[in-house]
Each structure stands twice: as structure tokens, then as C-alpha cells.
């Protein structure tokens, strides 16, 4: 087909377009870290860091009170008990506080859990800093084990004035046991299904 002299050379056009396709495919994946950064900057979708911050810097604002509210959810209704020891605290921005959560594995086998934080209002998430939290890593619980776990945090004094309440929401995800779950033959598949 290429012997036709008048026939234009499409290679250049096509390779540019193929490059664009590859680029856009990659862009789909680049959106993942971009989105993370975007959320971090804007507090989009209740973003709150899952990494430890260093302690508060600057002066604590003693005039201002902010209510920090704790709510907890167990995903998929798995048999866990998960609740805040106190449902709310009055805090001064810029000062460190510690709140406790009681977590109980009510199953007859050991299990691993990952607890995920989320903050409302979403835009306040980036002003909420945790120096220590049980949500930073997966936690393993023995059968029937109960633990009281701390989260140490401070509220950035830069929190906008109109925000008077921060809600810290934790969702407990059961990742299954370290050992074999009960449906042996389907275990692998069931794991996938659960996520």
C-alpha cells in the first residue's frame, strides 16, 4: 500500500497520537498521587494524614475552644466493639491532647485490623494533626482481646475561626486473621471479595 507516491506519511501523526494515548493512560495513574496531594492541600473528602506529625509549633491559643468529637464505625458489621472512651473533648488549638478508644475483638479467633481516620468538616482535616495513633499501622488482636488505644493530637491554631467542631471519625476494617480463616477452600477468594 505504501508504494503509492501521493500517499502521505502517517507515521508521524500516528506516533504522536499513540504517545498521547500512552500519556493519558499514565495520567490516569498519576491522578492517584495527585489526588492525594490535592486532598492534603484542600482537605478534600475529609482527608486526614495517616502519618505522624511532629508536635505543635508556636503558641497555644488559650482563648479559643474547639470541640473535638469522636465517632467510630465497624465496617461490614464484623464482630468488633469499637468506641471512644469519651465521645468529645474541648481542646485549645496548639496544645497536645490524648484520647482513648476501646477496641475489642469479639471473635473466637485472632484478627488483624486497620483503622482509617476521616475528619469532618473536610476542609478542617489538614488542621488536625496526630503525633501518635493506633491508625498508623495494622493492629493484631487475639481472640476476645480488648485494648484501650490512644491517639495523641493537636489542632492547628490556623483552623478557620468559623469551625468550632471537628469530628474525627474512625472506621475499623477487619482484615481477617493472620492464620487460616474458616472457609478454607475459598479463603483466598473471600479475602479479595472483602476488600
Amino acid at each position, binding site marked *: *500500500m505504501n*508504494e*503509492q*507516491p*501521493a500517499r*502521505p*506519511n*502517517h507515521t508521524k*501523526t*500516528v506516533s504522536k*497520537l*499513540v504517545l*498521547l*494515548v*500512552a*500519556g*493519558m*493512560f*499514565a*495520567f*490516569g*495513574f498519576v*491522578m*492517584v498521587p495527585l*489526588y492525594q496531594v490535592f*486532598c492534603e492541600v*484542600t*482537605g*478534600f*473528602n*475529609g482527608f486526614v494524614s*495517616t502519618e505522624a506529625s511532629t508536635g505543635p509549633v508556636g503558641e497555644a491559643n488559650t482563648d479559643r475552644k474547639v470541640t473535638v468529637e469522636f465517632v467510630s464505625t465497624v*465496617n461490614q458489621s464484623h464482630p468488633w466493639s469499637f468506641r471512644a472512651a469519651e465521645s468529645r473533648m474541648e481542646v485549645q488549638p496548639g496544645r497536645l491532647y490524648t484520647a482513648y478508644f476501646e477496641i475489642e475483638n469479639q471473635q473466637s479467633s485472632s484478627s488483624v485490623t*486497620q483503622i*482509617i481516620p476521616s475528619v469532618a468538616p*473536610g*476542609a478542617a482535616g489538614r488542621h488536625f494533626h496526630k503525633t501518635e495513633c493506633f491508625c498508623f499501622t495494622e493492629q493484631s488482636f487475639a481472640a476476645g482481646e480488648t485494648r484501650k488505644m490512644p491517639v495523641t493530637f493537636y489542632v492547628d491554631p490556623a483552623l478557620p475561626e468559623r469551625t468550632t467542631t471537628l469530628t474525627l471519625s474512625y*472506621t475499623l*476494617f477487619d*482484615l481477617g486473621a493472620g492464620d487460616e480463616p474458616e472457609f478454607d477452600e475459598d479463603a483466598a477468594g473471600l479475602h*479479595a*471479595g472483602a*476488600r
Partner: protein
Amino acid sequence: MSSTTHDAHHDHHDHAPPKGMTRWLFTTNHKDLGVLYMVFALIMFFVGGAMAMVIRAELFQPGLNLVDPHFFNQMTTMHALVMIFGAVMPAFTGLANWLIPVQIGAPDMALPRVNNWAFWLLPAGFVLLLLTLFMPGGGPAGGWTMYPPLVLQLGDAFPFLIFAVHVLGISSIMGSINIVATILNMRAPGMTLMKMPLFVWAWLITAFLIVAVMPVLAGAVTMLLTDQYFGTSFFSAAGGGDPVMFQHIFWFFGHPEVYILILPAFGIVSAIIPTFARKPLFGYSSMVYATASIAFLSFIVWGHHMFSVGMPLAGQLFFMYATMLVAVPTGVKIFNWMATMWQGSMTFETPMLFAIAFVILFTIGGLSGVMLALAPVDLQYHDTYFVVAHFHYVLVSGAIFSIMAGVYYWLPKWTGHMYDERLGKWHFWLSMVSVNVLFFPQHFLGLAGMPRRIPDYALQFAEFNMISSIGGFAFGLSQLIFLWVIIKCVRGGEKASDQVWEGAKGLEWTLPSPAPYHTFETPPVVK
């Protein structure tokens, strides 16, 4: 291959197409492939339509239970996938294949073998997709938007769904690369960009949209796949991911996709209205700029599909303003069509009837789109039948009406016969009335509180749903007339002249009817 360098004249040609199955299987001829695309689209239109009939039958009365709610969800999901990727997009690609070379004076598409490949991937992808309906656990039932975590609850069909989306995506990307290369490199001497018919312009822009966003969809579903089977957690909160991120990536594809489904329609209507008004298109260059700006805006408005997910205020406002802006270039197009008709000399053959209906009904869909653009009220409209009414006005009485208009308009050129005008008019009037009976009451249902994608509803919605279903059955049956008109026209009928329509302008009308297998092997010169 026949594309050797002999001096062929377009109205007599000795290279007849090979006979039998192999002609269609191995063809690289743009007209053959155009026909294949359109036949495939027509079949899928009826498959997707049959699913719509199941949906409307189930919703005929409250408490019916003709099908299980799970199957109902499969029908709504598959109806969307089949209609979008199987009917509307291939129909437009078919029209592009057939028409773009003859409208710009090229002998064929730039990459004929790629063209063949791109087409045959389509039936392969759809066989895969439709077979999922027979798998244990059924086909996809989480909506065509495939939101996780719901889509991950799909059973055996899940990897097939993902693979089918990949195949369909590759097919349309290949088709689009071909179209861009054809338009950019193969125009006849004198055919400058700003002399191209608007259908070609619309497709050039559409093809760029496809090339830009289909890979993003492929990426998104690939992430779903790895989340399900390879332990990643892009969209799973448990692993630090975010299900809402899927919605962002999906709609980054999804909104341009919406315009992929409508821009070629603008091109078709812009060809038909001047022909039957016997007056040049008003504001050609503003039409081109409007199309380009709609395409540009489509990349920055995706958030309006997600006003209820809990975006920060600034995000909501940004997407609201950007979305409202879309109304400006869209309005320009509609006013231009009106101005083209103004002081024309109009006749109302079937293509013109469909084109005028397009202008009116697309306007309704566009105006409800302006309402939906407003974030605060969208929190009421979102995911209700108001939205269903909106996008069906745009896609059925918009995109599909334009395709039908185009088919009636170019059918004499393809077959060499005039279609049966009387049947065509019957088809139009039945479709026009029934499509409104079908979709207009859905505005009321949505405003009155009926969510979309539900298999059963409160008694208060019974009346309008019954009316809508009756409209739906009537619309479905009317399309059988369309099928019959096409078959009849292919088999015979009054001989069509070369120009076919008195006011028709453009290179394709300089060809004989039916157009020979090979055309413009010597490029025409455009003044």
C-alpha cells in the same frame, strides 16, 4: 489490494469488491467498514432497546416483580453500556468511516488495516460483555459507572467486564487515531481546515477527545482489577485508598465521553439543516470554535457528576461555574441553526424532520442541563429521574435522532435508492411523539422524589411511570419501522440522483449514487 496507482476515474471502476463472507471479514475499504459499523450499531441498538423494554415493563406498575431486582440492575447497567459503547459510538464511527473520506476527497482512511482491526474488536468485546449475563451471579449490576466498592461485589463476570471495557476502549482509540490521521493528512488539495464540512470538524475534535480520555477509563478499570485480584487498594479505604477517587477518574473520562456522544450529532445536523433550508450554514467559524470550546470545557466539569460526595465548597463552586459556561457555546450552536433556517426555503423530508426535532428536543435536554449545573439544586436532582430524563433527551432525541437523520440523509447515496418517504415520516412522527411520552414525565417523577435505578417504587409514582412505559413500548415498536425502511431501501426503490437533495452541497454529492467502491483515487480539487 486495490489501491495501486492507476488512473481511475470515480464513476467507472473495474475493482469490484470480493464476494461472500471474506469481503466483510477482511475488508479494509472504508465504505464496507462504515457499513459494518452501522449494521453492528443497529443490532446493538435493538439489543440495548430490548433491555430498556425489560426496564420499562418492570416499572409499568408498582410491585410487579417480573424480574428479580438483581436482574433489573443488570439490565440498567447493560442497557447503558450497550447503548453508549455499542450503539451510539459505533454508529458515529460508521458514519465517520463512510463519510469523512468522501467529504474531504480522500480515497480511503489513512490506516485501512487498523480500521478493519478496530471494527472487529467491537463484536469481540460485546460478545464478552453480553456473555456475562449468563455467568453465575449474572452480569454487571453496579451501574455503567462501575463505582467501587459496589462493583467489586460482582461475581465471575468482573474480570470479563474489565476486559470487555479494555477491548472496546482499544477499538475506539484505534478508530479515532485513524480518523485524526485521515483528516490531518489526506484532505484533497484546496480543502483547508476551515473549508471542511462541520461533520468532519466535529469528528476531528471528537477523535481527540476519545484519544485523550479512553486511556484514562482503561487506567481506572485496571485499578479496579488490581484492587480486586492483586491486593492494591487504590479505591479501598481499608488500604488507605478512596472510593471517591474512582469517581473523579471515571468522570474525568465520563464527561468528555458525554460530548463524544453528542459532538458528531452537531456535525450531522449542521449538514442537514442548510441542505433543506437551501441556505448556507449560519456562522460556520463560530460553529467550529463553539465545538472546540465545548470539548475544552468538558475536561474541567467532571465534578458536577459528584456534587453530593462531599467536596469542599471551592470545588463545588468551581465545577458549578465551569459547567454553567458550557451553556454559552451550546447556545451559540442552537442559535446558529435557528439563523440558518431563518429566511431559508425549507422542505421537510424525513432527515430534516429529525434534524428539527433534534434542535427542539436537544434544547430541552440542554436547558435541564443548565438546571443540573447548579450545585445547590443538583443536590435535589442528583440521581433522580430528573437526571434520567435529562440525559435521555440529550442522547435519544439528541444523539440517536441525529444518527437517524443522518441515515435517512445519506442512505440514497449509500444504496442508490430513495428510501420510502411515507414510511420515513411515519417513523419520525411515531418516534417524536413516543419519545416525549416516554421521557417527559420522567422530569416530574424525578422532581417528585423518585430516585433512579430502582426496580419498584412508591404508589405516588404509579401514574407517570405507566405513561412513561407506554411511551417506551411505542418508541421501541416504532424503531421496527426504521429497520424496515432501511431493509427496503437496500433492496430497491426509486433511483436516487447523484445530488439526491436539491440543496445538498459537498464533495459526497458529486459522486454517483450509489457511490462506487473506490472514490477519489484522484483527489478532486477544492476551490
